[in-house]
């Protein structure tokens, strides 16, 4: 028989997981232009050096997290730092574990907004530099230090300026230990006209980033559901609504938060989640609605993974009007390792849109397609979303391969869905997008 207990929990939650998740928070918006940094210059000195060749790559891709006081587990600011971790760094970039943006490079749509992937040239530079003994080079070649954004600021502010509206969840005390908590306050937005959202970013507190597993937000008007505002999970930056589309903010709406905290050994007092919203001007109406919706892979039914077993789940969806898929974000927990998005055309042809083969719950990226390559679906086309789970010891994030694993809210259980941002078009709209893309393609072709 059990009696009352008041959190006299003395066991220690291992913090090793969060030594890894600690790399989650600020790594986002900055490290997006890695592809633009060049590889080794064959006309220069043949030896790759840190100061000339490697430091610029680290500035572009790594240092936003890997600097003193930031969330990376080690600094990569100086030659001494980089030399110490050179072999590990080489291995991590070669395997594309870092930068943490798990999206396959050889299949599907490759032109993404906010793409953190390091270029092949940069990877080759780092691995060759390490293989050559990691020489420092001439200190005079060292690039000027980068001014880093404040980790407490919204990351999309660099692009859009300060948010027009910031909605804060009611404060919540997250205990140091114990099971997952779901905090669901409802707070007013404070906007009294119907507006279109240009961009939205959900931002946990700096300290709370390691415990805020996800933070969903939906609109309510007079207590009734009025559409999804946003979704956040570990590592995600935000969402940018394409030009011409409108994610609607209803007048006089409230935001209903759905925050999933996972205690990690540190008491958090009065933690708050902030949602920054950038709005189009009042006169902007947008031609088409964009929605962010959860699509199940399991048809809403349960599933289970055997001890030391694997699982595949799959979901299908079609639309009543033509649509454009603006972003794809897999969602699962510690056993999900991969997810793909495909389109089965009504003529029977199957196209792979996206494949994430090394997915991890530490980084829930929303893969935002560039405007000219965002997939278009006609009425009758079918989305196919497939997820793969690994409950073996080969999955390093698996807490316990001896367990049966089933569906559930908590991190030790599993989920199987994807978040898709979808612009709902009509026949005229999809034909116009196709024509515009074709025209740009022709205009960009070199003269013959």
């Amino acid at each position, binding site marked *: *028989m*059990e*009696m*009352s*207990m*008041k*959190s*006299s*929990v*003395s*066991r220690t*939650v*291992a913090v*090793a*997981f969060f030594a*890894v998740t600690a790399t989650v928070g600020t790594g986002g918006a900055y490290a997006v232009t890695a592809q633009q940094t060049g590889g080794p210059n064959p006309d220069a000195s043949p030896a790759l050096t840190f100061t000339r060749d490697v430091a610029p790559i680290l500035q572009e891709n790594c240092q936003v997290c890997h600097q003193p006081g930031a969330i990376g587990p080690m600094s990569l600011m100086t030659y001494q730092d980089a030399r110490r971790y050179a072999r590990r760094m080489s291995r991590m970039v070669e395997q594309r574990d870092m930068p943490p943006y798990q999206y396959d490079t050889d299949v599907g749509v490759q032109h993404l907004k906010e793409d953190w992937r390091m270029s092949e040239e940069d990877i080759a530079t780092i691995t060759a530099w390490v293989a050559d003994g990691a020489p420092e080079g001439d200190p005079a070649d060292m690039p000027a230090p980068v001014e880093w954004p404040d980790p407490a600021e919204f990351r999309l502010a660099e692009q859009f300026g300060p948010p027009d509206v910031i909605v804060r969840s009611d404060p*919540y005390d997250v*205990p140091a*230990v*114990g*099971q*997952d*908590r*779901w*905090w*669901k306050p409802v707070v007013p937005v404070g906007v009294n006209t119907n507006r279109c959202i240009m961009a939205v970013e959900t931002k946990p507190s700096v300290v709370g980033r390691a415990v805020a597993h996800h933070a969903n937000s939906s609109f309510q008007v007079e207590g009734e559901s009025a559409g999804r505002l946003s979704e956040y999970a570990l590592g995600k930056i935000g969402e940018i609504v394409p030009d011409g589309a409108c994610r609607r903010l209803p007048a006089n709406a409230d935001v209903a938060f759905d*925050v999933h*905290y996972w*205690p990690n050994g540190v008491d958090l007092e009065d933690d708050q989640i902030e949602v920054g919203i950038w709005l189009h001007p009042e006169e902007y109406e947008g031609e088409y609605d964009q929605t962010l919706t959860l699509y199940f892979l399991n048809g*809403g*039914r*349960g*599933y*289970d993974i*055997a*001890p030391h*077993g*694997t*699982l*595949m*789940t799959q979901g299908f969806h079609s639309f009543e009007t033509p649509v454009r898929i603006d972003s794809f974000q897999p969602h699962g927990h*510690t056993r999900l390792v991969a997810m793909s998005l495909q389109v089965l055309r009504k003529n029977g042809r199957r196209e792979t849109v996206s494949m994430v083969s090394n997915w991890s719950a530490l980084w829930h990226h929303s893969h935002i397609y560039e405007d000219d390559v965002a997939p278009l679906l006609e009425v009758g086309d079918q989305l196919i979303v497939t997820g793969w789970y690994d409950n073996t010891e080969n999955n*390093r*994030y*698996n*807490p*316990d*391969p*001896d*367990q*049966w694993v*089933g*569906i*559930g*809210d*908590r*991190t*030790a*259980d599993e*989920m199987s869905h994807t978040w898709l941002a979808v612009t709902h078009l009509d026949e005229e709209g999809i034909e116009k997008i196709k024509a515009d893309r074709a025209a740009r393609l022709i205009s960009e072709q070199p003269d013959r």
Partner: protein
Amino acid sequence: MPRVESTLSLTFACVAMLAVGADAQDWTQREFPLAPSNATGNFVAPYFDGFYPNEDGTYTLSFGFLNRNDADLIEIALGEDNFIEPAEYDGGQPSSFPVGRSIGVFGGPRERGAFGVVVPADFEGDVWWTVTTNGYTTRVPGRLESPGPIIKGAYELSTGAMAEGSLRPGIRFSEGASYSWGVRGVEAPEELTASVGEAVEIRFWAVDRGERELGPVNMTLWKHQGPVGADVAFASLVEAQPGASPPRSGERPPGPGPVTSRDLVPLPIEGVNANQGHFSATFDSPGRYVIRIRIDNFTGHIDSTPGNQCCWSNGYVVVTVNE
């Protein structure tokens, strides 16, 4: 994952047997990713749902199960096909595994926290629950530390209030007794006796708990243990609460009448029968039974669902049924 039964074309089966001999591979042990679920013929998967500390320093290991069928009730007697090791922890597990009911978006059809095993404060090692269904054996360990290299605390449960303040409800079998709560729960102080076909009435008290406004709790009844194949017919004797909301689609209407393990019966919180549960159980076969009463506050509190691993408590009643 094996599928224990299915139908093969007899002709094809005969040809196959001729081709590979009578000791052909056991095809039921193959895995079929994305195969449709079966109404019958599948097995029971035992689940370790996590652990939580008790006030005296011990820990409770929480176990549940998933009947992987859509329709078939599975019953497995305690013994060589249904046991817990070390043996000192054996005996509290269910022998009856009905198909579960999904509650909440991510609830799924599995029954969580059907029983608990209490281990000492200095416990090290594993408590294994082994279940064999139609010859297929699977088992899970209850343990206080996960072996994964990165994530160690994933199976730790809380005894404190959830985000909105919900706590596990309280249950007691005597009016003057203290309320108990938790997966390990409380056993009725007296064993009951009954005859086959005779309804035995059971009363108990149950209350919501939480650091929030308190509300009604629900009663769900299970044949937890008993002779394999024996049926227990439950009937709620709880009167409908005046002014209670009409049942949602698929819900059992309030008031007295038959209930199954899929029904959540709200208990009154006002009137002379406030916080009282009352039901009858009628047995069709002699033997020793354990009835599980699950008390939950799933309805009305968004931090309390099976998927959240909160908030319910168990009460157990032993009934010996004679011819």
